């Protein structure tokens, strides 16, 4: 095609020009047809699930679907005092339905995130309505729990009644809404997530820095050795790269555990008398993560270093620069694209670590992924789990955009 396209401007025949354009359009269409199956597949099997997670972070169906009449009756409530009998009658009617459908506890569970003890308030309210013969309903419900006479509780119920909410997303950032609906900081005993995000970023940063310090000299060695030696040394880098993450994590557990190889060797060498605590702490997590990420940082640096001509440093030396000055001022700046690409990739991948900290880290080394899994699997608080995932995803995608700008996905290479 290139040959014809280059000739095109000189061709006077308009028919030929049109035919060329048609051929190019056909080719583009063909290319899009080739990409379409994978694109559709990724959208259906990957992007839609991610979208589901993002909707879960804001969807809030528990109260809105179960107390529809109450929420309608609450529509023009002024937050001045507890609502009047009409609202209580609507609530009673709703509770009769939820008692039948056994969903009262579900409302209680949702309210509990916002109001500790709300579960039992809802359950006793449901029972009270079921047992009472008829209205007026306000005394019945206030008798079941005095909280039904308070403005704060009704405000919380109304807030939780919106079909979509920023409650979980705010919670993931240690924020909440007060009675008036303003965003305020969460109570100190519940404000844990900023710390966990900070820890996640800190661990990723340490791992990135560590792999750079360890990887840069080795990349330089590999780039400057003759091809035969470099190829053999390269195998030492690529074999761990190719080995299962789980296998490498297992290896570190075996090495670092209390009666593990490292401790036993140190005792055998009489360097220590008591085994050191090497595992289930920050140090163990960092060592294992650096080991896994080292090739990801090293390989892009290496491939850039291979393209740097040794004559640059030689020229600098012959112009009077010392060996270290020549390296630092002439060679090192040229490696920056590789350093940037490798470090950014390692940082992005480190943010999402789950398995390794879970197996070799202690309670205070768990990163944000662990809590996404914890709230989804153990606590069954899908809203909060999804919201934490939402924040982590935004952070990762932001950095991915930066990576695209600086490095470009087309230039990504493996091994």
């Amino acid at each position, binding site marked *: 095609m290139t040959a014809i396209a280059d000739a095109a401007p000189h061709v006077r025949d308009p028919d030929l020009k049109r035919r060329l354009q048609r051929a190019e359009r056909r*080719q583009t269409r063909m*290319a899009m047809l080739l990409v379409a199956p*994978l694109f559709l597949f990724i959208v259906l099997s990957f992007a839609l699930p991610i979208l589901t997670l993002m909707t879960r972070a804001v969807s809030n169906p528990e109260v809105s679907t179960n107390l529809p009449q109450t929420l309608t009756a609450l529509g023009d409530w002024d937050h001045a005092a507890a609502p009047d009998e009409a609202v209580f009658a609507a609530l009673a009617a709703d509770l009769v339905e939820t008692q039948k459908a056994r969903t009262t506890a579900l409302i209680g569970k949702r309210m509990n995130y916002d109001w500790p003890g709300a579960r039992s308030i809802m359950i006793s309210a449901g029972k009270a309505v079921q047992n009472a013969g008829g209205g007026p309903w306000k005394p019945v419900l206030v008798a079941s729990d005095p909280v039904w006479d308070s403005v704060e509780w009704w405000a919380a119920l109304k807030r939780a009644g919106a079909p979509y909410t920023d409650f979980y997303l705010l919670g993931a950032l240690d924020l909440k809404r007060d009675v008036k609906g303003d965003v305020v900081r969460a109570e100190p005993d519940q404000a844990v997530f900023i710390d966990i995000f900070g820890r996640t970023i800190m661990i990723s940063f340490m791992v990135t820095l560590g792999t750079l310090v360890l990887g840069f000299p080795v990349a330089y060695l590999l780039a400057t050795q003759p091809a035969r030696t470099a190829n053999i040394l390269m195998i030492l880098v690529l074999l761990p790269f190719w080995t299962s993450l789980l*296998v490498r994590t297992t290896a570190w557990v075996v090495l670092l555990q209390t009666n593990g190889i490292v401790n036993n060797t140190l005792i055998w060498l009489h360097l220590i008398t008591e085994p050191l605590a090497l595992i289930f702490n920050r140090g163990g997590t960092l060592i294992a993560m650096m*080991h896994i990420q*080292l090739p990801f940082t090293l390989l892009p640096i290496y491939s850039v270093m291979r393209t740097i001509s040794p004559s640059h440093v030689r020229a600098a030396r012959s112009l009077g620069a010392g*060996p270290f000055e020549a390296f630092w001022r002439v060679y090192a700046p040229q490696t920056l694209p590789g350093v940037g690409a490798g470090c950014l990739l390692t940082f992005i991948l480190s943010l999402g670590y*789950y398995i390794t900290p879970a197996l070799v880290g202690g309670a205070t080394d768990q990163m944000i992924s662990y809590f996404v899994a914890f709230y989804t699997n153990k606590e069954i608080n899908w809203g909060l789990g999804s919201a934490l995932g939402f924040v982590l995803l935004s952070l990762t995608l932001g950095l991915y955009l930066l990576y695209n700008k600086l490095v470009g996905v087309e230039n990504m290479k493996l091994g």
Partner: protein
Amino acid sequence: MPYASPLERVWYWVFRVLCGAVLLFLIAPILVVMPLSFNAEPYFSYPMPGLSLQWYQDLVNNPQWQLGIRNSLIVGAFATTLATTLGTLAALGLSQRKFPMRTLVMSVLISPMIVPVVITAVGMYFFYSDIGLTNTLPGLILAHTALATPFVVITVTATLTAFDHSMTRAAANLGASPWTAFRRVQLPLILPGVISGALFAFVTSFDEVVVVLFIAGPEQRTLPRQMFAGIREQISPTILAAACILVVISIALLTTIELLRRRSERLRGISPA
């Protein structure tokens, strides 16, 4: 280094020792741990009291491990086939000179590699359970295919940037249909890249544990899932035996890829770049 100053000479050796230590750090954990899977006693330290193959026997005879190995092979085979086919087609399309919004499309196709795997797993757990794909092998195959395709797209794209498109034009000039030109000219030349991509895809699926934790039930337990369960409680030498087999597989695949890379470089040497 006849003209080097003493300082430079010292630095030269310090640098070498430093690099040696880093390379040792990379390779030692794997090499030190592997022999322990032949230990006669279920301890993890040297010296070993005796050698035995009992942990490998356990691996082969234990029905849970058998199930794990079988599931991993089935899921890996299907996911690799799907990912290699879809990924190669997409890479071929993306290599066209005028592809609209190439960077955007490519970013989307690569994103399963970048998005933290827990997020993918939780999202799939919600979405796949809505459509009845959780606790099924097909669900797991679809999930692993999505995770594996970026590796195929990246490797095949890298091979295609070195591919000389005048080859297919020459074939077309000589009367070959587009399909024949692809099958007889282009495919053989990019095949090393396609195979490397397929191997990457297989390893990705064969190692994956997080998505399995979320969307698979006990019947879909895979080898890594079985290993993960064991490491959490108490490491048994059987886990090390499984790890050892995985390392041997990695070595085999790495060797294959290295050979393919050399072949590909040789072929490229013939083509006028």
